[in-house]
């Protein structure tokens, strides 16, 4: 494998849910066991439904929260156990783009302060030097210099997401974690942003960890995909393989559930029954067994291990060889 920018192994995070004086505090395993690797210059997507732990994984990698156990190697450095004070380098190498372009930009700051904030934190550049870089960056993301003195709320959703991207790019990071970056946008704007992200990847050789619930978007932007369900990756591999030949019953159902914007492809769907279980109280064995059409006794008892079934695909299911 070429240079890997991020390698995550057996990542685990359990949150304590506050208990009162007489209540035992509960543990919720938001991320149970997650391992994957991202090559330089590629996009790896984590896809899954609510409560699957994809966003928590993203926040663990930026060390906004500390993992319970496991290893996170960013650009050759182990950061899972690093102290906050030792993370300065990480904060420059890894940047984030957030879902809600309305909420992720401080409404009280002007664009030049917003986009220039990472420089203010990480460099000793003068105000003028920072501003020069900000203007350059605005150009790169398709905005222009006269926007620099405005406040975030004067922009439309798409423009705001461009600001978010400019802010993430300004420290020249190697990895950008994009947490549902287009799901709050209208489709016609969404495609603008997706195109921009792709173009920037080619221009700056950035890697993306792309977190999304939207399979169509994920298929468009990724090179590799990990499908998550209740805190674990159930299937991982090259995008084409996963979409053309999904092996895990959950991946299959997930792909089949996506409505396709073509009425000629309408078909009676195999709809997954039941609800997504509450992560506070996950099912035993394979967590998917409560909804799986193929579940048998072994699925209720044993947790399936991740197995490599070919060069491009690994699956965690008792029935896939």
């Amino acid at each position: 494998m070429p240079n890997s920018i991020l390698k995550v192994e057996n990542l685990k995070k359990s949150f304590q849910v506050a208990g009162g004086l007489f209540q035992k505090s509960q543990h919720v395993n938001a991320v149970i066991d997650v391992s994957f690797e991202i090559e330089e210059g590629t996009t790896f997507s984590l896809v899954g439904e609510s409560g699957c732990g994809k966003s928590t994984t993203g926040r663990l990698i930026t060390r906004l929260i500390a993992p319970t156990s496991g290893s996170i190697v960013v650009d050759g450095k182990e950061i899972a156990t690093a102290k906050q004070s030792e993370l300065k380098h990480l904060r420059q190498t890894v940047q984030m783009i957030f879902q809600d372009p309305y909420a992720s930009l401080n409404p009280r700051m002007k664009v030049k302060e917003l986009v220039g904030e990472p420089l203010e934190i990480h460099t000793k550049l003068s105000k003028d030097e920072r501003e020069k870089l900000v203007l350059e960056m605005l150009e790169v993301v398709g905005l222009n210099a006269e926007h620099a003195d405005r406040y975030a709320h004067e922009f439309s959703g798409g423009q705001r997401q461009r600001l978010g991207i400019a802010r993430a790019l300004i420290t020249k990071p190697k990895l950008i974690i994009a947490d549902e970056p287009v799901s709050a946008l209208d489709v016609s704007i969404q495609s603008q942003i997706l195109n921009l992200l792709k173009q920037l990847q080619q221009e700056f050789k950035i890697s993306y960890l792309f977190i999304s619930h939207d399979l169509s978007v994920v298929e468009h932007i990724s090179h590799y995909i990990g499908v998550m369900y209740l805190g674990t990756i159930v299937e991982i591999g090259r995008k084409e393989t996963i979409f053309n030949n999904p092996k895990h019953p959950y991946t299959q159902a997930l792909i089949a559930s996506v409505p396709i914007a073509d009425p000629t492809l309408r078909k009676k769907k195999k709809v997954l029954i039941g609800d997504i279980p509450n992560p506070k109280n996950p099912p035993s064995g394979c967590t998917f067994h409560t909804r799986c059409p193929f579940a048998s006794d072994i699925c209720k008892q044993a947790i399936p291990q991740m197995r490599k079934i070919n060069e491009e695909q690994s699956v965690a299911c008792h029935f896939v060889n």
Partner: protein
Amino acid sequence: MTSPTTVQNSQVQKKQRKYSPLKEFWKSFKKQKAALLASIFIGLLIVVAIIGPYIAPYDPFEPDYDALLEGPSASHLAGTDEYGRDIFSRLIVGAKISLMVSFSAVFLGLILGTILGLISGYFGGWIDKVIMRSCDVLFSFPDLLLAIAIVALLGPGINNVIIAVMIFSVPSFARLVRGATLNAKENVYVEAAQSMGASHVRVLWKHIFPETISELIIFVTMRIGTAILAASGLSFLGLGASPEMPEWGVMLSSGRDYLGTSSHVVIMPGIAIFLTVLAFNLIGDGLRDVLDPKIKNN
């Protein structure tokens, strides 16, 4: 409901005047007629408090035994008290005491409470518990009773009133700021700043504290009203300003005995307290309508 403001046209934007938060604030505050009027009243009152001794028509301490308990007239706008002192002059000079006491007590409470609240809300954990439990203890003495207890302890006097009112303000400020901090912490841009590597001080100062300001401004305004009520209440009970001072509560208290015969000695200082507190509350209401994002959206 459809909100018609979510999207803006950049082409049209260019033509508009440059956006400035202060101008925007003034534009909406102008529409709050009651609050505007109240602000003018308070502005005048502050001026009066400063230049009071120079404009008062009579010496507020000089008895005039020829004019005891006279009703309002052209020569004595608000009448005279039981020593024949001009009530209007006393009210003018008293404004300084009331404003000084309430401003300094609230200001001290604000500083202390804000620091405690920010620390408590931002860091959480044991430090939050310690601060909040201490506030709970103070809270379990009802406002005015706490002040009474403190004055009972320290002895009567205007400085002790300031201390008392300050102490009972601290937990309210701390709780308010803590709540606002917890809300502000939820903002994704705070997480964004943390992910950029911003230090705690930077996050607190640049991203969280500004969020609490509008709530603080509203609360401070209202709190000044409460402080005036509490301070004059303490004076009324004989626990505040000394009896010869032209403090509004004291004037009211000493006028009590003449209520049946010369009610103006009670009515006049009461009106002064009432109008001042009302003005602060109206300003607070106006500010809330303008600044509170929850109301803004309606």
